């Protein structure tokens, strides 16, 4: 089985490649045209003229809600949304029900994914049992079951001693630690950015310091243990400043940014619409500028969605009682491309692709994110100039909690190929 993707602009940041050309796939693997094994096979041609041929996009932060909350999302529907967004690999967070804090649950997720997932589904395991921040989860056994990182996402280990020992222990397995940065004391029952709008709306504030405090803590512990920590969904400009200083000193700290945190501000909460409520919260235009600066100068080197489905009836309640989180996979590439490449010209397209492919692959040691010869043929065709409007009523997800319904973007994935097979095309 041979596939030839012809005439596209091939961008493969891992190899510094950016040229018009043809990409060859044989039996689910990227091949060199001169080394085809069975040259007599039928050739399936895909015309990519005018399109970008990129490594399949990777999102290292999604919630597919299985086991336990399949009314919000399943591994099937979530992976369909991923495919529509151009993502060939996703990394699931462990805050399921029961939590993915043990090897049996990890194996169950892998089996379920093998049956129904459209894209590659990787698992993270909990740092602590029950994601409670108290006792270490069986990290070594989960590593044997195939996890790619540990995290208590949705929760944050508050006890610094527990965090330190988790880091030291995980180093033995080369497992990076992903941290949701939230100081529980400072944040309290905060539900939106603490600032003028929280004062006006009478809503409890979630101050920037609640995030920055833990970013600073993580920098110190990463240095102490000489172990990597990846800070999830940065929302505060102050976090970028801390990260920049630490990375310049060689600390093994990295961070990701989500689309909503560079596309929307806290003012969006003025209608008390829970589709604008997520954790950490939307902040200010000044934070957006600092986050984008951090993306431009390399302080932030990974982008992710924090795709977090919730059923409509769960979201359509009083704002303080609604769960945090929004859908993200289908609009993710579009928002990053529109804001970072078109509107702000903060980074170019090859850099954007690196942040969504090889960089997360390197952090998690995935054999993905590149178009190198011999790599799995996960490929995304992108049309960075294409204008389109998002209609959340058409999402495969059973949830509808997107703040971007009706929004128009420039940039879209048009075909998603996993191991040589097209799993979605426009």
């Amino acid at each position, binding site marked *: 089985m041979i596939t030839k993707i012809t005439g596209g602009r091939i961008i493969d940041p891992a190899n510094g490649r950016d040229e018009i050309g043809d990409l060859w796939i044989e039996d689910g693997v990227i091949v060199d045209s001169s080394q085809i094994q069975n040259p007599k096979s039928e050739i399936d041609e895909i015309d990519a003229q005018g399109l970008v041929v990129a490594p399949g996009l990777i999102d290292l932060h999604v919630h597919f809600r299985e086991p336990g909350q399949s009314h919000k999302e399943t591994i099937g529907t979530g992976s369909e949304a991923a495919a529509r967004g151009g993502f060939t690999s996703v990394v699931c967070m462990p805050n399921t029900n029961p939590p993915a804090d043990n090897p049996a649950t990890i194996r169950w997720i892998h089996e379920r994914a093998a049956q129904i997932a459209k894209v590659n589904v990787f698992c993270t395991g909990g740092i602590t049992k029950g994601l409670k921040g108290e006792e270490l989860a069986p990290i070594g056994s989960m590593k044997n079951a195939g996890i790619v990182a540990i995290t208590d996402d949705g929760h944050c280990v508050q006890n610094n001693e527990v965090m330190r020992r988790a880091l030291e222990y995980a180093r033995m397995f080369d497992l990076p630690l992903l941290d949701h940065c939230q100081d529980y004391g400072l944040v309290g029952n905060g539900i939106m950015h603490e*600032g*003028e709008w929280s*004062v*006006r*709306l*009478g*809503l*409890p504030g979630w101050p920037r310091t609640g995030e920055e405090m833990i970013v600073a803590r993580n920098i110190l512990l990463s240095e102490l243990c000489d172990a990597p920590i990846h800070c999830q969904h940065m929302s505060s400009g102050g976090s970028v400043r801390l990260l920049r200083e630490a990375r310049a000193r060689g600390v093994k700290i990295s961070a990701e940014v989500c689309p909503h945190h560079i596309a929307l501000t806290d003012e969006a909460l003025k*209608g*008390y619409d829970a589709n604008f409520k997520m954790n950490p919260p939307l902040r200010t235009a000044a934070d957006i500028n600092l986050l984008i600066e951090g993306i431009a100068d390399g302080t932030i080197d990974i982008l992710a969605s924090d795709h977090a489905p919730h059923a409509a*009836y769960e979201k*359509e*309640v*009083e*704002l*303080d*009682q609604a769960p945090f989180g929004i859908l993200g996979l289908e609009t993710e590439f579009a928002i990053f491309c529109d804001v970072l490449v078109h509107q702000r010209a903060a980074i170019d397209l090859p850099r954007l692709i690196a942040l969504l492919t090889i960089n997360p692959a390197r952090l998690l040691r995935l054999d993905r994110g590149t178009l190198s010869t011999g790599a799995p043929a996960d490929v995304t065709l992108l049309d960075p100039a294409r204008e389109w409007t998002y209609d959340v009523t058409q999402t495969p997800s059973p949830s509808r909690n997107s703040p971007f319904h009706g929004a128009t973007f420039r940039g879209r994935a048009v075909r998603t190929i996993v191991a040589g097979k097209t799993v979605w095309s426009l």
Partner: protein
Amino acid sequence: MTNAPAAWTRKDLIALDALNAAEITLLLDTAKAFKGVGERSLKKVPALRGKTLVNFFVEPSTRTRTSFELAAMRLSADVVNIAATASSLQKGETLKDTARNLEALLADIIVLRHSSAGAAQFLAERLGASVINAGDGSHEHPTQGLLDVFTMRERFGRIAGLKVAIVGDILFSRVARSNVHALVKLGADVTLVGPTTLVPRSLEALGVRVTHRIDDVLETTDVINLLRIQHERQRKEYFPSLGEYTALFGLTKARAARLQPTCLVMHPGPINRGVEIDSDIADGPHSVILEQVTNGLAVRMAVLYLCAGGGAA
């Protein structure tokens, strides 16, 4: 802000922040007309005859609920009261479903008191019935703001240029927010007073001054509005004790002696005698606390009439 001739076009009253000066003035003028009705021996008018008002109180209140109930009765509406403990919210029904059930019973007006900011707006966007906000979390309490401003305007004949001090737990106070919005829109000069933890500088974004010394305002203010101060579990890190609060911010006799003779002392109630206000001062010549309660009735009649009674007087 606009001073265009007022026309009332809203079915709901959610927040004074959303109104312009002309709309607020129309509400106050309408309340003035209704105040006369309360002074007659026959206190009833037929404006809302045949309409049904549901007092839907998801948070306890006696004063506000009774005031709305009397206001509705004086307008000849039928009134049903639903308290949180009796409501099905405790059985897991959502606010939306409960309200849609009330509407299915053909309620015309829903007066909502709720502990969540935004709850009244949430209902107003989803129901055809008029929704009147009787206090939503720390957001707004528009009829309280209106009755406070009504009381000031009745005494001074104007709002523009008045110096108004609001003292207390501003950060968590819906009464303070509604007062501030109405007063600022009508041109008053507002100062918020209280400890740095409860009166943060960020409040200046609302167009007011902030001070942490009550002495700064005593001799110059035309109105001093004291909010009920509470020292519940969630406030322990905001100030150490009621005693220290009284020492720093309470309207004691000594402080009251420095007020201008014409200064009004206001309080939305219920008052903590001896905490935010000295007991004698609460009953003394500066105090208009009971007048506020009486005016609340007229203001709520005006709100119900304009939102549900088919247009301006």
